[in-house]
């Protein structure tokens, strides 16, 4: 529920490579490899079209972006904030270039026409799923699926969406370590919004750890650093068993 498989894939491809930073226009390959994500071909050479890390997967070469805005894809779980209310829908800010309309038929309540603000109002935080994104990038979202809901209490942290896969970690290793060591409930939206709920002090540590992951996403042995950091803040009853990723 808290993350989707796509990020695992990214993380695997990403693992154990020298992190060569490239910028738009840089030549990624001139030996006949195929262009992967965020790459294009000019005169037989593959070039980068975003700033990021050069990424080789089999015989394709592409770029994993370091920056940039979140673009929703269907199936993503996202956290959003209600930013406008209409008679039969809400507009949700999901940190994408476009707000996502949430129609009354996609919420788990029976809402009469014009009665929308009784259920969700400005500033309310919701956990949604992206149903579809059409060619002109029109987004449809739903709140009718298991676990989807209005979120109350706790804390919200915003990280760059390109760092979400690091927060989750390989096969979810990072996020489960965070949850276990801080004893917090944590929900990660693919759009970079993360909800943390737990005891005040522990939540502070979890939030700081998430920010640390975002800042240091480029560095190696991140899991160990984060583990050390949390241990220094919260004494662990028993040694948390790190499954040894990275």
């Amino acid at each position, binding site marked *: 529920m808290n993350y989707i498989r796509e990020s695992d894939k990214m993380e695997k491809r990403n693992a154990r490579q020298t*992190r060569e*930073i490239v*910028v*738009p*226009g*840089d030549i990624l390959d001139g030996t006949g490899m195929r262009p992967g994500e*965020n790459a*294009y071909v*000019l005169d037989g050479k593959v*070039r980068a*079209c*975003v*700033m*990021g890390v050069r990424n080789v997967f089999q015989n394709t070469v592409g770029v994993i*972006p*370091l*920056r*940039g*805005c979140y*673009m929703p894809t269907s199936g993503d779980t996202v956290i959003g904030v209600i930013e406008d209310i209409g008679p039969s829908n809400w507009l949700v800010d999901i940190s994408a*270039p*476009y*707000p996502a309309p949430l129609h009354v038929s996609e919420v788990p309540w029976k809402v009469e026409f014009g009665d929308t603000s009784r259920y969700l109002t400005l500033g309310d935080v919701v956990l949604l799923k992206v149903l579809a994104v059409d*060619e*002109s*990038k029109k987004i449809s979202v739903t709140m009718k699926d298991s676990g989807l809901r209005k979120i109350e209490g706790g804390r919200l942290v915003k990280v760059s969406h*390109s760092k979400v896969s690091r927060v989750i970690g390989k096969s979810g290793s990072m996020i489960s370590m965070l949850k276990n060591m801080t004893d917090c409930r944590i929900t990660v939206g693919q759009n970079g919004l993360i909800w943390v709920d737990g005891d005040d002090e522990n939540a502070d540590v979890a939030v700081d750890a998430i920010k640390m992951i975002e*800042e*240091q996403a*480029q*560095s*190696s042995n991140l899991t160990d650093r984060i583990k050390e950091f949390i241990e220094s803040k919260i004494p662990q009853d028993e040694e948390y068993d790190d499954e040894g990723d990275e």
Partner: protein
Amino acid sequence: MSGHTDMVLVDENGMRIDGRTADQHRPFKVEAGVLNNADGSAYVEIGKNKVLAAVYGPRECHPRHLQNPTKAIVQCKYNMQAFSVSDRKRPGPDRRSIEISKIISEALEKVVLTELYPRASIDVYIEILQANAGTRCAGLTAASVALADAGIPMRDIVPALAAGKADGHVLLDLNKEEDNYGQADVPIAIIPSTDEIVLLQMDGNMTREEFDHGIEMAVAGCHELYELQKDALKRRYSKKAEEESE
């Protein structure tokens, strides 16, 4: 271009008043990621020109009637600050800055992969902190670094530099005196991977030979500037990586 002076702009040894030879540009300085709020930002100095650029987006396009259902639009606003010139400039847009904003927007639209973000706007703000001939080139140079820094997909980074003519000599990168009392000014911007021209203006009086020579120098100067643009972007992340691995 119409000014007259007894000032010798190029001496008998081919030396210019600031000690440069005909084909030498002024010192360049490029920094990426200099502001917090903007999605991408850059600071550029070309000689005494000091320029900041910030990028927001892709985000919802305002005003809405400018939206294009098939691609994003690039909206650039070039602004000279009141104290940037020797006489105080009255704040607010004038005909000159509106024209410059338009040609810079068009130059950038050529390299940005706008079709990825239908209906959106990519907003570029260029602020001239200090002007000394060549602000549109410095502005465009900064803007393209800011776009890459914002993680916006683009074919290449765009450098811009002017050539011109003073005292009958074809010169690279005119300074203020050469611009005021010279005979021609030709600012250009190129896509370095293909040497395509995306911005070109000319005023003054040049022969075909002089013009060809000027363009040749300006293109070579653009390629030098391009290396600094790429370096500024990469430096931003390699510095971070170093700090982390201390």
